[in-house]
Structures are given as C-alpha cells and as structure tokens.
C-alpha cells in the first residue's frame, strides 16, 4: 500500500529516556543546578574556604561584605573577607561554607533515617494489611500525638546538642509522612493483578516487595523524601537558632542566624546571607522533588 496508509497496529512512539525528558523540564533543571552549586560548595568547603572558620580575629569584628565598599564606601570592607566577618571576627564565607555542609549532612542523614523507618512501616502496613496495618497505625497515631518541636527541644536539652543526637531525634520523629503516603500507595499497587500474577508465578514476598511494588511507588517516595529533607534542614536551623541544635563554635546556617540576630538592625547582612542560602537550599530541594514527580509519572495515554 501507499506511504499514506496509517499504521494499523497503532503503535505509539518509543518512550523517551528519563534524561531526554529531564532536559525538557526547566523546573527540574533549575532545581538541580541550584542544588549542585550548593552541594559542591559544601563538599569543597576545605578547599574553597579562604580562612579557618573557627579562627577569631578581633581586629576584623563586624567587617561588612565587600560590596559595602562599592555601595557605601565602607573603609573596612575588602576582598580579605568577601562576605565580611562576624562579631568575633571569624570569616563569614568560610563559616557559611562549613555551615551549609553541616546543614546538608544533617538533612541527608535525617531523610535517610526517617525514610528507612517510615517506608518500611508504610510498605509493610500497605502490603500485609490486617494486624500489621493495625500495629503500624497505632505507632503512627502515637507519633502524631507527640508535638515535634517540643520533644526535639526536650531531648536536645537533656542529652546535649551533638550532631548525632539531632539526627537521631529528627530521624525518629519525621517518618510519619513516609509511612502514611507509602501505606496508601502500596495498598493501591498491591491490589493490582500484576502482583497476583507475580504470586501465581511463584515469586517470593521479598521479591514482590522489592522488584514488583517498589518501582511503582518510587515516585511518591522520592517526593516525600525531598519534602522531608527540606523540613529537616529547616528544623535543624530552628533548633540551632534556639540554641539547642548545633553548638558553638560549630557553624551551621541556623546558628549563624541566631548569632547574627543581635546585630540585625545595624548589620542586616549578618542574617540576610545565611537566610538567603537556607532559602535557596530548601527551594532547590523542593524543585527537584516536583520535577522528579513529573518525570516518573507514567504515560497513560493509550
């Protein structure tokens, strides 16, 4: 037949790979770009930092960032401290790099810990149902009845504010959303016939959970993970701001905000700079989460 004959089989075009589709998704690209810059800066902090973040130099107290020299003709501002120095004369750029590093580390660790707890509970509840579901629901309601910040404050004030304690407390408190979301999506997915088919074929339960169900619930898992990571970064900042998180002289974004707040009417840059970094970091994580959710959506056009 002639070339104008339509394809009777009606086969749609081959799916584009995830990389090709990511290229057409500007939100995701912006998120990835921002996150990459911040993550690289944090990773390379020892190389990039111009000074020792702990070194105090009282001759350099409250030196403003370099652009104060250009804008206001400040005599103290110079390239020696590009982002200025805090009230103890510590280099602000170096502290910012190390602080971001700590915030990211805590965010990732908390996300991993709470993600493991929450998704294990959620998937088990959704797949097995019955008594397992009841038990998970009991745990979940118990957890939800605990006021998050209050408990975090209490535990940190009792056991001190080491990074390990913060990660442990936040990890044990932030798993609820993982459990709720994964329970319901697992329930939906495991009701489908392909799970029954896998059982008929003779697949073991771990195989079904990991290979049949997990790929189908990965999208909501990643979205929740990014939301929780952003939340963990903010919570760490909040705890540090209240003096119960990362302890001085360790730098963290929250602690820098806390230390800068006394001077905020005179040297507003002291809280603006860590505030902007925190804002951009959380924004980048959320943009990545949104983008991945869109990318992993299945084409249900046929």
């Amino acid at each position, binding site marked *: *037949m*002639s070339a*104008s*004959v*339509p*394809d*009777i*089989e*009606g*086969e*749609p075009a*081959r*799916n584009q790979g995830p990389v090709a589709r990511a290229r057409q998704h500007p939100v995701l690209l912006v998120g990835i770009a921002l996150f990459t810059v911040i993550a690289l800066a944090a990773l390379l902090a020892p190389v990039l930092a111009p000074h020792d973040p702990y070194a105090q130099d009282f001759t350099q107290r409250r030196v403003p960032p370099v652009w104060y020299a250009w804008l206001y003709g400040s005599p103290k501002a110079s390239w020696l401290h590009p982002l200025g120095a805090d009230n103890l004369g510590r280099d602000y750029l170096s502290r910012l790099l190390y602080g971001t590093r700590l915030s990211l580390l805590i965010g990732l660790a908390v996300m991993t810990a709470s993600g493991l707890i929450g998704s294990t509970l959620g998937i088990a509840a959704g797949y097995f149902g019955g008594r397992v579901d009841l038990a998970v629901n009991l745990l979940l309601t118990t957890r939800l009845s605990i006021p998050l910040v209050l408990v975090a404050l209490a535990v940190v004030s009792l056991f001190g504010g080491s990074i390990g304690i913060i990660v442990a407390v936040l990890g044990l408190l932030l798993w609820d959303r993982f459990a709720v979301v994964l329970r319901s999506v697992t329930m939906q997915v495991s009701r*489908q*016939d*392909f799970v*029954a*088919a*896998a*059982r*008929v*074929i*003779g*697949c073991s339960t771990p*195989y079904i959970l990991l290979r*049949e169900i997990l*790929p*189908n619930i990965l999208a909501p898992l990643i979205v929740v993970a990014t939301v929780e990571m952003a939340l963990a970064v903010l919570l760490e900042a909040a705890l540090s701001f209240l003096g119960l998180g990362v302890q001085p002289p360790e730098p963290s974004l929250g602690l820098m905000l806390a230390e800068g707040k006394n001077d905020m009417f005179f040297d507003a840059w002291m809280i603006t700079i860590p505030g902007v970094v925190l804002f951009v970091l959380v924004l980048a994580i959320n943009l990545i989460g949104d983008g991945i959710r869109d990318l992993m959506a*299945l*084409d*249900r*056009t*046929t």
Partner: protein
Amino acid sequence: MSALLEVDGLNVRFPALGGLHPVRDVSFSLAAGETLGIVGESGCGKSLTALALMGLLPPGAERDAGRLAFQGQHLERISDRAMADLRGRRMAMIFQEPMTSLNPAYTIGNQLAETYLRHMRASRRAARERSAEALDLVGLSAAGERLAQYPHQLSGGMRQRVMIAMALICRPDLLIADEPTTALDVTIQLEILHLLARLQRELGMALVLITHDLGIVARVTERVSVMYAGQIVETGPTRSVFDQPAHPYTRALLDCIPVPGRTALGAPLGAIPGTVPALVGDLGGCHFRGRCAQAQAACAPAPIPLHTAEPGRAVRCLLSSGWKSAPSSTALASVVEAEPAIGAPVLSAVRLSCSYRLRAGLFRYGRTLHAVDGVDLELLKGEVLGVVGESGCGKTTLARMLLGILPPTGGEVRLDGQLLDGLRRRDVARRVQAVFQDPYGSLNPRKTIGAIIGLPLAVHGIGDAVSRRQRVLEMMERVGLPGRLAARMPAQLSGGQRQRVAIARALVMQPDVVVCDEPTSALDVSVQAQILNLLQELRRVFGLTYLLISHNLAVVAHMATRVAVMYLGRVVEEGPTADVFAAPRHPYTQALLASVLTPEPGLAIPEPRLRGSVPEAARGQAGCAFHPRCPAAMPVCRERTPRVVADGLARVACHLHAPTE
C-alpha cells in the same frame, strides 16, 4: 414523515490533542418515535456523537456540522442557554455508569425534583408528585418512600431506573441511552431493556441506543448505524443489516461474536486482525482497509462516500455493489486439530469455602460474608471448565483459592491428589498458571514486555539469560506478538496485545492448567475473538486444561466443554456444556440462559424471569440461597439447603430435581 433529528456532516475535533478527529462526517436522521441503534467498538466515536448532539462535549472539543437540527431548530446556532433549556426537557440522555451518575449527597427525590423544576414552572409540591409518578413509571415500588432514599441505598439496577426516571420526568421527545446496561448483570440488563422498550412505546419518544453489544441492538432497535473509526460505515433497517450485512466490517463484527447454538464449540471465530487506527489527521480512503479481507488498491486513495444501495440503506464501501456473498466466515482455515483427551482430575476443590468477617461497629454485630460456600468441583485433565455467574457470585474468589494465592477458610484444594497447602508455592507455579481479566492491571507498568514474559523463567532459575531470551521470543511468536515489542513498556501496547503478553507469561513455563479469570471481558468483540481463537489454538498445541471464568455465557458456551453455574458462593448446576445449555435444570441457570441476547433481529427481548437483584444478606442462611428470586420457589426451599445430586449427565442443587424420598 418529518424528521425529529437531522444530522448532516457532523465532525468533532480536538485541535489541542494533535489533530485528534474522532467523529468524521456523521449523518443520520431520526423520525419521531423511532428507535435507532448506533453500534461500534470502543473508540469508534459513538459516545462523542451523542455528546455532540446534546452539546455536552468535553472542553477542547470543536463541533461543526452541515446541518444539526432538532425539531426544526438549528442546534449549531442557538445559545448555550437555549440549549440548556432543550436538554433535559426535550432531549435527555442516560449514561453507562449508574453507580456514579447520581450525586451521593442528595436524596433521589431531591435530584428528580431538581430536574423538573429546572425546566418547568411548578411548585415544589407538584415537582414531588411528578417525581413519584416518574419512579412509578420506571417500575420502582413504593415510589413515595423511595424519594427520601439516597443513591447508596439502591442497587445498580435500581439506580439505572432512577436515571431513566430523571431523564423522562419532563417527557422528552428524544432519549439518548449511552451503553445503559453495560455495567449491569445480564438478568438486570434484561429488565432495563424491557423498561426502555416499554417506555419508548408508551411515551412515543424517539430513542437512540448506543452500544457495543450487537445482541441489544438487534432486539431493541428498528434501524441501526454501524460506526467504525469515526464514520458511519453502514446504516439501514436492523433486520436487513443483520441478515445481509453489506460492509465487510459489519459482516466481520457479526462473525466475531460467539452465538450459543450457532457457532460450533471450539471452532475458530471470525476475528478481525489488527486494531482500530488512531483517529488523527486524514486517514484517506476507507478507514477499514487495513483490516479488511477484501481490500483492494482502489480502497486507499480517495474518501469513500456513503452511498445508498437500496431505499433506506447506505454503505460506505466501494465493493458493496458487486460484493454480496463472500463466505460467511472470514475464511479462517478451520484446521481442527485433535481435541485433547479428557483425563483424571488435575485440580479439585473439596467443600471449599472462603468467608470474610465484616467488621463489627460499636453498635453493630459483625456479620460473616460467605464469598465461596462449600464448593465441590473437579477440573479434569484436558477439559475446559467454564464457571459462570453474575458479579458477586464468588467465581473470582474461587479462582484465587484454586491458584493458591488466597487461603481458603474451609475445605481444601488438591493438585493431582496432593493437598495444595503441602506443596511448595514454586512447584504449584510450574503446574498452574493464570490469565487475569484486566490487561492494564496485570502487567507491571515499570517493566518491559520481554522482562514480564521472562519473569517466571528468571524466578525459577530456568536456563541462562540467552536461552531465556530465546524462549521469550519463541513464546511471543507463538501468541502472535512481533519480537520487536520485547523492549516496549506495557503502556505502549493495545489491550489485545497486553492480553497476549499475559497469555505468553502464563505459558512460558509450560504449565498443565491455566486459570483464565474473565480473559476477554475488558476487550472489544473483535479483539475478544482473536484472544478466544488464540486460547483454543494454544490449548490444542500444548494440551492445556483451562478453568475459564466468565460472566459472558456466549463465551463460555463457545469455549467450555463442561460448565458450572455459581450463585452466591455455591455451584447450583454443573454438567457438559451442550447438555446444560440445551436443557438447563436449575431455575437460575434457566433465567441466566434466557437473558442471553443473541443478535437475531425480530426476536423480542425475553421476559425477565427474576425479581430483584442479588441479595447480600441471604448469604449463609438456611434454605436455598436462590429462593427469594426463584419463580418456582416452594416452602421447602426456605427451610432446607438443597444437596447437589446427579441428574443425567449433570449435577444440580435444587429441590425441584431432588430425588423423591
């Protein structure tokens, strides 16, 4: 005869969806009081045609027509307001899904009165009276009290009656019914069709009945239009279209459907190869040519006009003039291979039960729901055992227990005489496999076709990667899938292709028994015929034993060598298919068989024999579960549960057939 509705050159396009053009040059007219059937497979544009007439097209759709006139009014020129007034008052529509077409937050009476007050100047009180009248008209008892009920208090059949009452409350001149019975059980379908036919006669309104079911069209309508790929390909009086189909598509469609008593048991059906083309852009020439056995070079280039062959009949085919009597079946060489010999029982159920405890509330006692209630059934090697029954009769639960993926709460399943419980899951998997109903849900959407078919081999560690791949490709060829699809994802395949994938996965380990749970109920008739033919062929090639579960009696009659009829978790009758279909013993089997609508125009819609719908509360109580609906119920039916007794070749559980004591 002045036309009530005139449609000339109706087109529906979706410019935003890449030039999707699902309704193409549709023309027909309808006289007052006439019944017209529009029949076609899914995606042929029949529902969009109806929505275009009603002015209810989804956003993004564009409608244009040479002429679209209703009672002399030009619908394409009147305002939205005037159209809204027309809709519901002069023309009404009922939809397929009775479960979701009523608002669950309002009472029936509220929704009926709302429709009436929307169009008529009347008091609330008058509207209420008219609502009760309308419910009375559609045969709902105690209409006055029903008005205060909410949709969830009614069964599916009753809801569809309410939908019809709502459509008719303003006494429209035209009723469009879009698949009004597709979501209902066959016995309920019969009642609704009866009702529609009676109301159409009594109220003298015109009826457009849209359906994929040729049997319904044949029995209900006077004229029929067959749609394919957005066009009407044939139109004419129902009787003459069914007796002498002029378009190859109409003929092929009629050959696709198994008709009990007409198509030979196990003989191949006249399947239409391929699938409907995507309705994008200009398809040029005849839309059916790619699947047509008679296609010629002339079919391709120019659009084919709808030309009148004889008065009242029109066909969109170049061949129709000279082409009259091709062989009735689309010439599938019927190489009937040897039937597998029937042997010993492979899979057997002994007093098999499954019951669920419904959760007790604070002020409620927990009830027990017997999904399957003491079923004895044997599946003999080499046979095809059909299990039929209406929705909720427990046939799927039975299948899952036989597959060993749902633990029974009572009784046992034996595979070759060994308890299924005692066998390892993997050993059972090598012998018994399954094909499920939903070809969309039964394939993991994140895996490639090749990985899905090869999964059983990988899980059981059969062969290495290379030999597995070889075996997968062989299997794909066997079930009629081109090997290049192995790298595709399930979402890229059509429904029929996916069901072929599911069959390939079930057969790749060469099992003895395949449990097919409604393998074709989600498919169009032409694709259903392909799949049924494939199942028959594979059975002969591999010597398979099938357990075929279906609500479609015609499919079971065509495929099964033996049939078991289930009602409320029990087998009420069982025997050789020919025997059971020729002389059904149980009143339920009789009613079920009587509700099969074969595509034979001229035959009336059979009188419904059963009252009411399947009751849920009757489960597990004493006496025959069927007695509340049984036309032949006796006092003893309420007291004692009938035992299953042999009667000739069959076994039946009914007091009418109990041996006299």
